[in-house]
Each structure stands twice: as C-alpha cells, then as structure tokens.
C-alpha cells in the first residue's frame, strides 16, 4: 500500500460539537488516575446506572490468586452480583469488562483483549466474550482492572471514563447515533483533545438491532491512525449487546493517557521484549508459508475447511460447495487492503484485523455510504456465507457490516439464517409466515432485509432475533413444523448458536462444542484436525484428555487479556520436527513465551503446569455457576443431531459412500439391501451412543460426576470450595461427599467464616425440588445420582444454613406464549403476495460430494 494513500469514507463528524453540547451530565465521580504496577491496579470500578452511584472496589491478593483477571474477575463479580433467580433483563445483571494482567503490553502479539462477562439473554447462564480494540487497555491505564455496570438507566445514557482527568460521568447523549460505525466515530472525535489524541479514545457500543433481539453484540473501537478512521471489534457471542441496550447504555467511552511500552510497569521488561521480538520474527519468516494471517486473517481456512468437507454449507447439511472459491482467501486477498498494519492492539504483528476499505453499501439506511468493513472473518464468511448458500462476497461483506453496526453477533446470525433457510426449503416457513421475505438459499438480499427488520424492530426479523432455540419452539407451537425435526436441524446448545465448523465427522469436536461452559463455541477447543484429519486422539480417553487440556489452556488467554491466535496460527519453524505430533499441537515454545509474559509482567514465577491450574480454577467455577443458574448438568451438554450425523436422506445420500463404509467399518453391518432410512437409524444409534461414551470419559477427566457436576474433590483441588460453591453442587453429590462436607464445614470454622465473609449472596435458593432430567435422560446410567436426601444436619448450623438443599429447576418455558403471539402478529405479509410452496422445494444447486 502507498504510505500516503488517503482513504475516502463517508464521515459522521459533522455537528458533533452541537451534539456534545446537548449532553446533560447526570452524575459525576472523581478518582485518582493510576497506572498498573506489575500488571494490576488492584481496584475496579462499579457503576450502578439505576442509582447513579459509583464505587471503587479493592482487588486483593486472594482474588488475583483464584481468578487471575479478565474472564476470572468477570465471573467472580457476576457471581456476587446476581442470584440464582436472576434473569438477563433484571437490573442486577452485571456487565463486566476486564482486561487481565498481561493486557496492554505492546511487545507481544495479541495482548490487547478485554473480556466481557454478563448473564446471557440467550442462554440464561454466564457468557464471556473475548474482544480486541483499545477499550480494555485504556481502561487499565486509566486505573481500573475491571469495569462493572449494574442497574438500568431511565433513558439512554453514555458513561465517560476520563483516565487523564480522573473523572467518570454519566451523561445523556440524545443526538448521537446508536449504530456503532457512526457512534464510535462521533464519540471518539468528541472526547479526543486533538487529532493525535484520537488513538487514546475507545468506545463500546451496540446498535439498533441489539435491543430487538437476544443476539446483540458489543463493538469495541480503536482509531486507526493510518486509515484515519475508527475501527470496530466485536464481543460477539451470547447477547451481551442486548443486555447493554436493556440497561439503556448508548456507549461507554474511555479516554486514556498516551500509550507507551511500559505502562503495565512490568517486573521484567526485557523478558517480555525477548519473547515479543522472537514472535515478530517468526511472523516475518513463516506467516507467508503458514497461515497468511497478515494477508487474509482467519479467512485463510475457508478453502481448507471446504477441502476437508468441514465448511458449514446450507445449515450444516453439507461440508463443501463448488462455489466456495468465491468466498475463500483468493477473494479476500483482493478485498482486504494489503500491506497496512492491521492489529487490533499495538504490537500485533499477526495483524488479522483486516478491513474492506471504501465499501459502497447497497442496502439499508446507509445505502450509498462508503465505509470500512471490519472483516469478514472466517466465522462470518462461513456463517453468513456458505451456511446460507450465499457465495457472493459482496453480500457477505454487506451482512458483516450491518451485523456490526446494528450490534448483532455474526455467528449467531449466520446460524440463525441458515436454520431459517432450511425451514424454508422444507416448507416449514413460507412467504406468508415470513411476512413476504423469500428465504431461499443464497438470497443475500433477503438476509439483509431480515437484518434491517431486526434493526427496525419489526416483522420476521423479531422472530429471527429470538435465536434458534426459541424459533424451534415457536415454529412447532404454531404448527408449522415438527419439534423433533426442528430440534435436530437447529444448531444450538444451551441456547447458543453453534459457531461455524462441521462436527459430524469429529466426535471430539462434538464434545469440543457441546461440553463447553457457555455453549457451542470453538474458543474452548478446536480439535477437528487433530481428531478427524490426523487421527491423533483415537480413543475416548485420548479425546477426553484433549477436551481437558485445550479448554483449560485456552481459558488462560481470557484470564490474561490475550488473543488465542498468535499461540498456534504461527509456529516456530522447527515446531513439527522437534516435537511429537501431540506435543507439537500445543506449540510448547509458545507456551513458554506465555510463562515468560506472565512472570515478566507480574513478577510471579509460574510454570507451564501452573497455566492449566490457573485456568482450571476459573473453568470449574464457571461450570458450577452454570449449575447455579439452572443448567450445568448432562442434559444441557447434548448436541442437536445435525452436529453429530446426517439428519435427512439428502445428507446421507450426498455422502453415501462414506456412511456406508462406516456401517461396515464401525458397526460391521453390510449396507447392501438396506434402505437409506434404515442405515440412517443405525448411524444415529451408533453416533448417539458414542457421544455418551465420550461424555463419560470427559466428565471423568474433568473431575465431574456422571451428571456433569464437579465433585467436592475437584472443587477442593482447585481451591474454589467456597461455601456458596459447595452449596451449589451439594444437592448433586454422593452421600459420602455430603458427609465429608458436613465434617469439613464444622472442622475448620475459622476458614469457613473467612470464606463466607467473601461471598455476598445471603439468600438460599428456592426450595423447590430438583426434577431429575427425565426427558433427556442420558443413555449411560448416572452412577452417582443426585442425592435427594442431601440436606445436611450439621452441628454448627450457622455455616451450613447457607447451603440450600435443593436447587431451583431450570426454567422450562423458553418463550412466553404471549410473546410469541405478539411476535407472530408483527409479521405483516406484503400485500397480495401469494405463498409459493413449490418454490420452497425447488432443487438447490447440488453441493459437491467428497
């Protein structure tokens, strides 16, 4: 790229001074700005938008030791903030943004991440999302290791944290846009002192569609000094943007000091520098030969996925398509501006945060505007592209843009639209039911219109915004389709839409998706290649080991404010020759870099093993948190069948050779003379059984009961046997464990007292009995069934009183009838449009067979 190129974009800065003058300050708080020492400020900021109160909280050594930071702090604060009965739109729901101790170093790639935690509207359990851009680091350099936002504002507000002046304000901002590409630009320019200061401002915002759906995302901004434009990165998953808008937040703005290379005041700068230079050099030497991240970012794997039949095509029916070439890296290398530093934080030489510049929009309120589109990333290309049968890059870019600016998670949106399109294909939906939208495969324009409806809060867009799990119920309740079938084809777990990899032929990845804390999301474990392509983890125990190690290891990134990509999307040149294949997959030299970074920043010497321990504490805590909110048992770890095998005849027959061969190899059954239906039934039984065996192995490895509950021993080993945590699992433990709890909790009174004083939630959970999961009873017998007579009768009532004997059952009804009726009524069919059922069944372009 020419160093002096001037990018032409539509600008939204006109009149921002007048807009700013219209702000009314509702509350103000003065604080002493500080810089972290060895990675921590040791305090966080809590804001209650309902009462307009500000509170600084001290972060002590115990908290750091147990929860490290980032996602760990977020989960701890959320636990303290909510009750088991809390729902996402209750005022006590807490949005926590926490950067982590390593976050903000500039020398090592991928060190600017913020972790966002809240109670998810789509899953009703905690969600955590890892996001780039500058908000987290600038928050930290203003003086806080975490920001908590509780309560609800009466009308739209912004929160401005000025880390230079030491001032936080809650202000009205009536005139600025809700949509993120505009809002980020307007607020950035309003709160920077001059042009050079623009890079020291970051904005968090959602968008118009976040409030009308349950899949709202948050956009975190940074100012790109080369392009001279604000860029957006997303905390995408789990609907945190919806919570944000429910609290009536228009934006959070942070204005921090000018960033330098030593703002964390690390214990050993040289150690960090050495690790950083080494990785930059690897990027320089090997990226072109390895993942070409600097050229095409994560889209480099579109063609790889297609080649291995792993790319989601048409709602995960198929794994490849002849038109994939139109949305693979050969296309993106032309679309993305090349040769420009594209890191989402300083020092990211992996630079995957690419952008399509000066893109002319073709639809919606910004039609004709020239914008920068951040992405598409792999997930967007696959989810909003191939998974919807859309192979036109321009539609994918447009969809990416509007998802971002409206505040919608592209992954959920892609999986949702794929599901809707398959419902259309099968006649479950038609033009009458969608209000005139033709949702046939490949209709990019309809996909965009669905999105615009979501933003306007009207029509079928409102139903789509409810997510796949609720749509399954709505469509069957309306009598449009059979629930069992809808359930099979809708890719969601725990209510969260699955991200964009085909897991049918990788048992380990099925576990990687559905044995996760927050729902089917590849950030815990991506083991498809190891499992399916390289066959490195053949036994259940091998797979269980991978599903122990990788989720734990990857959790660590979120504790520290790091990006996962520079861990294994680049490798030292000799990684594969020096290490045995399974070790190579862990990239040992890079793990050592992380040891150096943590120790170099905090001064606390750790080992590679300690990394896993730090993560496991938080991971197990999160699992118990799920249980506390009514999920977190085996029943909720079950995939829809589409994630495991062929649901329909077409799917089977499109890969008949493979499936027939599997019948012989796996089941020793001769497929000859059997109908497709018979063969499908055999597969289903085999695959479902096999998954249950995997679940057993993984639970054992993770130290859980066969119902998926962390045992007392597991909690103790991880040092998270706090009374409230123990109380949560207690009703599910064995008799002997219950006896042990009684003993332990009366022996060490002092310690318990200590731990209790650290926990806040004083009310025991509702006394209703736990219904054993009758409907979804696991196929493998639970060897340790939940103990019903678990109510302990301790000697020292004081401590044990805190342990509720029974837990409130999970909310069964996922969508209120009234809500559904209201939603369905809102679908206004376009005048005189007739339902074309035949059209729905039109043959679609046959995906290629592998």
């Amino acid at each position, binding site marked *: 790229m020419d160093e002096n190129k001037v990018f032409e974009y539509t600008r939204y800065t006109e009149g921002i001074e007048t807009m700013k003058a219209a702000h009314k300050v509702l509350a103000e708080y003065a604080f002493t700005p500080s810089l972290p020492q060895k990675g921590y400020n040791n305090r966080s900021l809590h804001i209650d938008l309902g009462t307009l109160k500000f509170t600084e909280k001290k972060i002590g050594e115990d908290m750091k030791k147990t929860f490290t930071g980032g996602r760990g702090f977020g989960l701890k604060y959320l636990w303290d903030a909510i009750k088991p009965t809390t729902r996402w739109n209750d005022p006590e729901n807490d949005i926590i943004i926490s950067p982590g101790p390593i976050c903000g170093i500039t020398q090592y790639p991928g060190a600017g991440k913020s972790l966002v935690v809240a109670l998810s509207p789509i899953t009703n359990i905690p969600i955590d999302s890892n996001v780039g851009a500058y908000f987290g680091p600038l928050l930290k350099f203003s003086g806080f290791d975490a920001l908590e936002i509780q309560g609800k504002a009466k009308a739209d507000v912004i929160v401005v944290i000025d880390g230079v002046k030491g001032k936080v304000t809650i202000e009205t901002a009536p005139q600025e846009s809700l949509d993120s590409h505009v809002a980020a630009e307007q607020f950035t320019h309003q709160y920077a002192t001059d042009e050079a200061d623009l890079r020291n401002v970051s904005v968090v915002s959602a968008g118009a569609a976040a409030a009308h759906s349950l899949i709202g995302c948050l956009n975190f901004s940074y100012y790109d000094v080369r392009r001279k434009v604000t860029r957006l990165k997303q905390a995408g998953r789990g609907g945190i943007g919806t919570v944000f808008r429910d609290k009536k937040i228009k934006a959070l703005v942070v204005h921090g000091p000018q960033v330098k290379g030593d703002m964390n005041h690390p214990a050993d700068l*040289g150690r960090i520098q050495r690790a*950083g230079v080494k990785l930059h050099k690897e990027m320089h030497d090997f990226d072109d030969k390895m993942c070409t991240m600097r050229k095409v970012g994560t889209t480099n794997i579109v063609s790889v996925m297609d080649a291995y039949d792993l790319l989601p095509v048409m709602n995960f029916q198929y794994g490849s398509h002849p038109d994939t070439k139109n949305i693979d890296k050969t296309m993106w290398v032309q679309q993305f501006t090349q040769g420009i530093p594209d890191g989402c934080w300083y020092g990211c030489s992996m630079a995957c945060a690419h952008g399509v510049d000066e893109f002319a929009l073709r639809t919606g309120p910004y039609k004709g505007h020239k914008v920068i589109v951040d992405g598409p990333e792999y997930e967007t290309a696959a989810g909003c592209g191939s998974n919807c049968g859309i192979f036109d890059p321009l539609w994918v870019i447009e969809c990416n843009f509007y998802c971002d600016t409206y505040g919608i998670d592209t992954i959920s949106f892609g999986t949702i639209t794929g599901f809707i399109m398959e419902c259309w294909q099968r006649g479950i939906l038609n033009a009458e039911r969608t209000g005139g939208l033709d949702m046939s495969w490949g209709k990019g324009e309809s996909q965009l219109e669905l999105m615009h409806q979501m933003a306007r809060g009207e029509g079928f867009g409102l139903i789509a915004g409810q997510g796949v799990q609720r749509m399954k119920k709505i469509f069957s309740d309306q009598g449009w389709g059979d629930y069992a079938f809808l359930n099979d084809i809708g890719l969601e777990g725990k209510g969260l839409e699955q991200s964009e990899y085909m897991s049918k032929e990788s048992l380990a990845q099925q576990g990687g998706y559905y044995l996760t804390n927050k729902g089917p999301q590849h950030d815990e474990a991506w083991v498809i290649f190891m499992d399916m392509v390289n066959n490195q983890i053949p036994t259940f125990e091998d797979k269980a080991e991978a599903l122990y190690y990788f989720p734990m290891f990857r959790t660590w990134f979120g504790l520290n404010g790091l990006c996962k990509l520079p861990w294994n999307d680049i490798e030292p040149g000799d990684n594969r020759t020096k290490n045995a294949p399974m070790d190579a997959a862990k990239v040992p030299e890079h793990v050592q870099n992380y040891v150096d970074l943590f120790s170099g920043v905090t001064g606390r010497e750790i080992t590679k093993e300690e990394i896993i321990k730090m993560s496991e504490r938080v991971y197990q805590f999160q699992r118990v948190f799920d249980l506390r909110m009514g999920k977190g048992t085996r029943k909720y770890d079950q995939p829809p069948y589409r994630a495991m095998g062929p649901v329909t005849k077409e799917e089977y027959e499109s890969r008949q050779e493979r499936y027939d061969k599997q019948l012989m190899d796996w089941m020793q059954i001769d497929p000859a003379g059997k109908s497709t239906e018979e063969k499908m039934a055999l597969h289903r039984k085999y695959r479902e059984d096999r998954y249950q065996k995997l679940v057993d192995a993984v639970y054992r490895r993770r130290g859980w009961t066969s119902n998926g509950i962390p045992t007392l021993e597991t909690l103790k080993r991880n040092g998270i046997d706090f009374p409230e945590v123990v109380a949560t699992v207690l009703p599910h433990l064995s008799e002997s464990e219950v006896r042990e709890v009684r003993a332990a909790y009366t022996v060490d009174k002092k310690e318990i007292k200590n731990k209790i004083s650290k926990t806040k939630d004083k009310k025991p959970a509702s006394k209703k009995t736990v219904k054993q999961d009758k409907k979804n009873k696991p196929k493998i017998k639970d060897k340790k069934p939940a103990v019903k007579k678990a109510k302990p009768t301790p000697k020292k009532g004081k401590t044990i009183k805190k342990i509720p004997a029974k837990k409130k059952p999970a909310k069964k009804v996922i969508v209120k009838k009234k809500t559904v009726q209201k939603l369905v009524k809102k679908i206004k069919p376009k005048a005189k449009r007739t339902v074309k059922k035949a059209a729905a069944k039109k043959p679609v372009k046959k995906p290629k067979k592998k």
Partner: protein
Amino acid sequence: MKYLKTNPSLCKGIKACEKTCSKAFFKVEDPEKSAIRVKQTDSGFEINVCNQCGECIPICPVKALSRNKQGVVMLDKKLCVGCLMCVGYCPTLSMRTHPDLREPFKCVACGICARACPEKALEIAEK
C-alpha cells in the same frame, strides 16, 4: 539517501564504533546499546548496521517511523508505543532493543562512528 556504508574487509575488530555510538546516544560504553555491531566470523569481521532500506516504515502501527529529508529512517519516540514489530521485521536485524529502553533504536547515519574508526571501515555515503 544518506546511510552508513560499511567495508567489513577493512575491519580489524577494534569496535571503536560500538563504543562511540553507545556513548553518543546513551552515555555509556556498552555494545548492547550500540546501533552498530561488530561480530567475529571465521573469515574476519561482520558489521551489522541499518542500511536505511525503510522496510520497517510500513510495519509501524502508529507512523512513528519515517524518512527525514536526507532519506534517513527516523524513529519518533513521542509516537512510538514500543511494540518492537519493527525489530522483528527488519530484514537485516539492525533495529535494536534493550531491556532498559522502552523504545527501540537504530542507526541515524550521524557518522560519529565513521570518524572514530581507525581503519576507515565506515563512511557516510549516499545511495
């Protein structure tokens, strides 16, 4: 474009350049803080110093690197965030870093070392 031209065949390994360079910019005689480095090899001496190729300029995320009027690549410490990407991306590995220093440093073709070299192995030249 001004740059420091090296003639390693004349170098006797006296390392006066390393000393003067670090002295001039960091007030210490410390080869680790010198922009120019001399290394003994089997066949003699190797001199490593920035040749002002400018490949680091587009790497910098904050435009802290640019050419001055003479064509010398200069680092603006006010803008620099110390990310060291320029260090890893320098094709000759001549951008330097030191644990005492937040920002990297490089040869600015000032010529002090050339004057200090008794063997005349260094000179300021144009290309």
